[in-house]
């Protein structure tokens, strides 16, 4: 294969960000994400961008939001402990509708946990980590090549919908070096911009798709940005009608475009009696396990969401309606399995294969689990 290079997952993230036009990075060192910062400071200046190492993760995301308000395509990267600190500003960026990308290279938790071991323990935090009612867009690559593609997608979705987007993958994907060929160019989507008279500009008046045009500070539009519930003028309000309209709109702009956001890989589901639901690194194990189990004559398939949130209830539900058993494999003690149960709504048996000890779930583990699931069924 020509042009293939051995690239680390965290480097693919940086390459993807640069391809997507990222021109601002602020972050704080943390294992296993630090390579992203170390590569950003090497590459970003030549790409006309700005790098800054902040005093903590709270400041990192605040700085990213400030840069985005000034017109930059901005991102930060962290791991679990830092992701916890960033929740405050994920909420702010959601409310103020400021595009930004947050990368969480997951390690074992809670707390400092297992800094150099993989985990998928943050997938519910990525949905519900910040307080209040809010939408979330969370993407989960399972290979180095996919880290590149989904980093690009994260920027595009952030800009398209004016919202923070989280890219979440585990330590193994972050540190694995894999042969990949990067595309020469990628499609880049930019935030909608206003073109009307600045004196009558309403910063939070949205067109039918729910995404208001966004000028940058310094563009000639003077407007107010706040994390308080606000009206179309962007000014704080406690009026229930205005408050309800705002919170509904920031939800709907995401959920009404789920088909634009959701990406799913399926494998050998046509005649499957068992389906493995897996994501991220476990998706790789599931893929291999399906191939091996098929060789042994077991009718098994796989559904792997690349978009964890908004959760693909519809697609998972369709699989549940078709198979007898859904085997949910995740490197935590049961987080997305609850969503799979909601999606299945009793239409299939749900079996968990869960692990949270810092070790990966292997294809061998899953082949055994598939056999077990079959035995349970009969």
């Amino acid at each position, binding site marked *: 294969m020509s042009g293939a290079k051995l690239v680390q997952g965290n480097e693919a993230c940086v390459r993807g960000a640069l391809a997507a036009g990222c021109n*601002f990075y*602020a972050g704080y060192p943390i294992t296993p994400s630090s390579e992203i910062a170390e590569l950003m*400071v090497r590459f*970003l*200046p*030549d790409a*006309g*961008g*700005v*790098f*800054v190492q*902040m*005093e*903590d993760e*709270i*400041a*990192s995301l*605040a*700085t*990213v*939001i*400030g*840069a*985005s*308000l*000034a*017109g*930059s395509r*901005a991102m930060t990267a962290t791991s679990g402990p830092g992701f916890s600190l960033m929740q*405050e*500003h994920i909420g*702010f960026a959601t409310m103020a509708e400021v595009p930004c990308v947050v990368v969480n290279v997951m390690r074992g938790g809670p707390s400092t946990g297992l800094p150099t071991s993989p985990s998928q323990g943050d997938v519910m935090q990525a949905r519900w980590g910040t307080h209040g009612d809010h939408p979330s867009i969370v993407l989960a690559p399972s290979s180095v090549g996919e880290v590149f593609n989904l980093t690009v997608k994260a920027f595009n979705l952030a800009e398209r919908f004016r919202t923070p987007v989280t890219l979440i993958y585990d330590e193994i994907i972050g540190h694995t070096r894999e042969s990949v060929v990067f595309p020469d160019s990628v499609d880049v989507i930019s935030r909608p911009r206003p073109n009307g008279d600045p004196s009558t500009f309403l910063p939070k008046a949205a067109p039918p798709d729910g995404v208001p045009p966004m000028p*940058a*500070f*310094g*563009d*000639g*539009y*003077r*407007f*107010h*940005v*706040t*994390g*308080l519930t606000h009206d179309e*003028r962007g*000014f*704080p309000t406690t009026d229930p009608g205005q408050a309800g309209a705002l919170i509904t709109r920031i939800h709907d702009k995401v959920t009404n475009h789920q088909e634009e956001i959701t990406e799913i890989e399926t494998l050998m589901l046509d005649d499957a009696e068992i389906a493995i639901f897996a994501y991220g690194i476990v998706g790789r194990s599931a893929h291999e396990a399906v191939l091996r189990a098929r060789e042994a004559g077991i009718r098994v398939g796989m559904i792997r969401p690349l978009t964890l949130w908004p959760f693909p209830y519809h697609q998972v539900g369709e699989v549940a309606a078709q198979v007898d058993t859904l085997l949910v494999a995740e490197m935590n003690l049961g987080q997305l399995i609850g969503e799979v149960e909601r999606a299945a709504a009793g239409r299939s048996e749900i079996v968990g294969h869960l692990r949270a000890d810092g070790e990966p779930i292997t294809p061998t583990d899953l082949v055994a689990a598939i056999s077990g699931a079959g035995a349970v069924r009969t």
Partner: protein
Amino acid sequence: MTDVRDHLREWAMPHVLCPGCAHGIVLRSFLEAVDEQEIDRNRLAMVAGIGCSSRLVGYVDFCTLHGTHGRAPAFATGLKMARPELHVVVVTGDGDGLAIGANHLIHAARRNIDITVLLLNNSIYGMTGGQAAPTTPTGAVASTTPGGNTEPNFDACKLLIGAGASFVARVLAANPIEMTRVMVEGMTHSGFSFIEVVSDCPEYYGRYNGMGGGADMLTWMAGREVGVTGPLSSKRFVNHVPSSTAPPGMATGIIQREERPVFTGVHGEGSHGP
């Protein structure tokens, strides 16, 4: 000079400040400073955290960011580095800037990023109902120090000098003309400038400590500046300190001014430095 009311969002009034609160006087002095410098409103970003003083940004017709509690210096850092042609001014309070946000404030000072921070110190948490702040003097009464504050208080200017701020000043809300002059000096300073404005909170601090209304507190404040007839460096503000271990007061005026390389983030070659 234009009418400084041109800089206001009158449609956003009435404002949330209490009668007698000196924050409005501070805002007026700031708008005079903006006017004097003839700053293009489209290029002026005003960034605030959470609290009474932070609410000021809602009423000014600039590019305004009302962020999260204590984090204004970090938001401001992103704005300034992404768009260096912006004038970036942070408005913060003593709780916002010196408790929850002290870390961001000292690191912005250390970097010497070219922004101005106005810290409006009213010695108490006003918006949340009068709790003790890191600036509440020892012995003073607040809703969480009913028997008098037992903790020592910060001297914000000393803290910022220690952190490396290249311009540090303290002014009193009772001296609006002096306030404007110092704000112009701070905003035209190349690098990080920090201006503590001693403001008031008649509603909580004044009421809890028997200091009267807003006018009484400003009169009191003006009378607590000592050493004004001596050399400038001897000017001090002596706060409301009932205890006998009263410190000698805090310096006022421009306390620190030095030229240091200005931080712009890591850009392409040669852009880091003066």
